[in-house]
């Protein structure tokens, strides 16, 4: 028994445990569906058929995994020094807004000049949105969980304002969106699907995150802070600088997700460019225990659920909320098992 327990704690088995726990959540939702007289197996078949049954479904999984990976990184990087960034949604919108400004005012530039600029603007916009709570935390000790969460509403409302006000498309018959971007501001789409260059951004960002964390002195210092901030300060590690750096790096990646959404998927800024990617990304990061590779895996899993959610609505008449319930239960089960592990350790 003791040996089994040790085995269960070994790092190699973490993915297995996560899979098992995910399965547990599916069973729980199944019972819930049964209570409402729906066949859970049919629902799950619909979800997975939706995601894997067609090239379209598969490609849509990737399309949704892209912002999820970036927003998860936005949570995971600050989480490594013990900060809770719940502001992915706002940072995504800030990045989208900054990129939109670039696309609308510099749209005449050739593609090779404009796109890198838009990427930079997306990064900067997200970073700026994260800088506010970071500075508040560093200078005044304001809890970043609350400030990032509240800032989400502010930034989303700001987007609402600009698309109805100063940036509104004059030809939109009063629809709240900006004019369509010029072709030079569009990110490339691949293979006749909606998969876009944001995929490379996300994978490169995650690889960089992994590399910096494991192979550089900065990553080392981040891990020391995350493990014991007091010892870090006493060893002369500048805690304040790392609060600003990790928050802004995280915010920048969420902003990049926003840039990719407006430049590849929407071609314009409008409300609802994100279906809660910031919040789901937060979930992805926690499910992955803030581990870069885990983030890729969990982003794909939640991508599957989100694409499958559309299918459940169409074929079974179940609400999309079914999928939200599954996500929430996975989250509870995984976090619950972590607390249990921490208690018995």
């Amino acid at each position, binding site marked *: 028994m003791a040996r089994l327990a040790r085995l269960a704690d070994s790092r190699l088995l973490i993915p297995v445990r996560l899979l098992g726990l995910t399965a547990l959540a599916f069973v729980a939702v199944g019972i819930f569906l049964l209570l409402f007289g729906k066949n859970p197996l049919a629902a799950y078949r619909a979800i997975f058929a939706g995601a894997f049954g067609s090239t379209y479904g598969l490609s849509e999984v990737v399309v949704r995994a892209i912002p999820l990976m970036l927003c998860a990184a936005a949570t995971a990087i600050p989480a490594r020094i013990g900060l809770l960034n719940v502001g992915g949604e706002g940072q995504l919108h800030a990045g989208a807004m900054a990129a939109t400004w670039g696309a609308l005012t510099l749209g005449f530039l050739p593609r090779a000049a404009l796109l890198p600029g838009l990427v930079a603007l997306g990064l900067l916009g997200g970073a700026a949105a994260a800088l506010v709570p970071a500075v508040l935390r560093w200078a005044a000790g304001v809890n970043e969980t609350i400030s990032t969460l509240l800032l989400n509403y502010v930034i989303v409302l700001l987007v609402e304002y600009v698309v109805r006000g100063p940036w509104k498309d004059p030809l939109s018959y009063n629809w709240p969106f900006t004019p369509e971007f010029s072709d030079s501001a569009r990110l490339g789409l691949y293979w006749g699907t909606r998969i876009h260059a944001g995929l490379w951004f996300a994978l490169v960002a995650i690889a960089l995150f992994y590399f910096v964390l494991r192979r550089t002195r900065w990553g080392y210092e981040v891990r020391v802070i995350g493990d014991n901030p007091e*010892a870090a300060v006493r060893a*002369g590690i500048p805690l304040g600088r790392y609060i600003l750096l990790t928050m802004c790096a995280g915010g920048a990646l969420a902003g990049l997700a926003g840039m990719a959404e407006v430049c590849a998927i929407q071609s314009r800024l409008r409300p609802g460019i994100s279906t809660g990617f910031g919040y789901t990304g937060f979930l992805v990061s926690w499910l992955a225990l803030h581990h870069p590779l885990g983030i890729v895996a969990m982003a794909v899993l939640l991508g599957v659920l989100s694409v499958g959610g559309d299918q459940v609505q169409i074929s079974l008449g179940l609400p999309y909320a079914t999928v939200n319930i599954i996500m929430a239960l996975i989250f509870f089960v995984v976090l619950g098992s972590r607390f249990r592990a921490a208690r018995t350790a």
Partner: protein
Amino acid sequence: MYLRLDGITKSFPGVLANCGINLEVDRGEIHALLGENGAGKSTLMKVLYGFYQPDAGTISVDGARLDLRSPSDAIRAGIGMVFQSFMLIPAFSVVENIALALPRLGVVPDTADIRERVRQYGARYGLTVDPDAKVWQLSVGEQQRVEIIKLLVSGARILILDEPTSVLAPHEIRGLFEILQTLRRDGYTILFITHKLKEVMAIADRITVLRKGSVVGTLSRDKATEQDLAYMLLGERELRTDTFSRRGRADGARPVLELESVSVPGERGRCGLAGVSLSLHGGEILGVAGVTGNGQTELGEAILGLRRAAHGRILLDGVDVSHATTARMLEAGVACIPEDPLRMGVAPGLTIAENMILTERRRFMPRGGLFTDWRAIRRAIEERIENFGLTIPRLTVPVGTLSGGNVQRLLLLRELSRRPKLLVTFYPTRGLDVAATRMAHELLMMARNGGAAILLISEDLDELLDLSDRLVVFSRGAIVGAFRPGEIDTVDIGLLMTGAKRHEWHDSPASPIPAS
């Protein structure tokens, strides 16, 4: 036998902490558990307290076998424990803290009743403490008394005390022993964890010696001598007396560290520093005696750049560093052994190797650490560790899995191998066993003879008198006396430390150091 532990075995990943331990304790006995760090004393007692579940073995009290799955089971069975770090809530009053420990606390706690019981126990056993004082206002000795009252009020008959004397001044230790003797007279059974031979001989009825997770033997006190116990404790290792080769310090040189009437505000009702002046030369150990919480922390943290001085100046090699950052102080050759090594000195989740480079990151991880050769680092550290005669299993295990004593040794090793110009060390041997203490003392002496200036903040007066070239006594954030060892004995220092006596014969508070 009243209390029986039979074949207790407990292992942690990679460590066998207890190996088939048998222990028998009589009712109304003070039973000492003697052993070095990592001998398994604390683990064994945490098993008895239900904090750990043993891999094998049984516990019985009065012939009835106990199945202890948690501390609350133990409390219900009449077993209570005072941990080394107290489990009190500083913002709560004594009564409120004790109410928390009661097994059946009503929705509206009857505080009047608890207050009355605190008074009763206080009067009966000499556990005097103000029931309405907030815990943060109490001295460490008083907090310990609160912990003991907590056990008595919750109905414990078997009291486990984990190194209760390590935080006390000498006269407080005497007070504690009197309390324990009264408790014994009333039939309480006391298990006393320690590694100090003197205390064992002063208080215990019987002594069980542990080494490397096993029982070496159990002796009754009248049949034991300190020599026997030391032999059992250390095994075959050679016993030496403490004599240090002390090379004279460089005279006339400019002091490495000078404090000019430095004041630091205290936090949360604690006293800070009130106009402290001192100077410290290379090749000299300046001892700072004082009860914990009398400004020593603030002193160390001000020097390290972790706290700003409100008034006064701090000079390092004659340069004003009052506003220098911690990183700059470390680079300038200042090192620190903090008061709580595990909490302040290391990142417990990181490996030993990663922790050993914490204060020399730039040297070991140049160019952003892109080309860090961990294998070479591990080899270098292994070499250092061997040179210091330490045995550490693997450098790739997390530091958090090591015993407190081993963490302290690694910290000493890490900081001293930087060859610091100034070493600020807090309680360098707190929690260390006999062998490790001797090693730590030798290391400090070696550093001193090598020219380092050492600020030795300690509560262990024997240590202070043995090692220091000069000695200052702290009370309420100020220096209340300055001596050379030999001019004063431990009892007088103890009285000065606790403010029970003021030192009348130093000339002026602004320059408390006698000219050398």
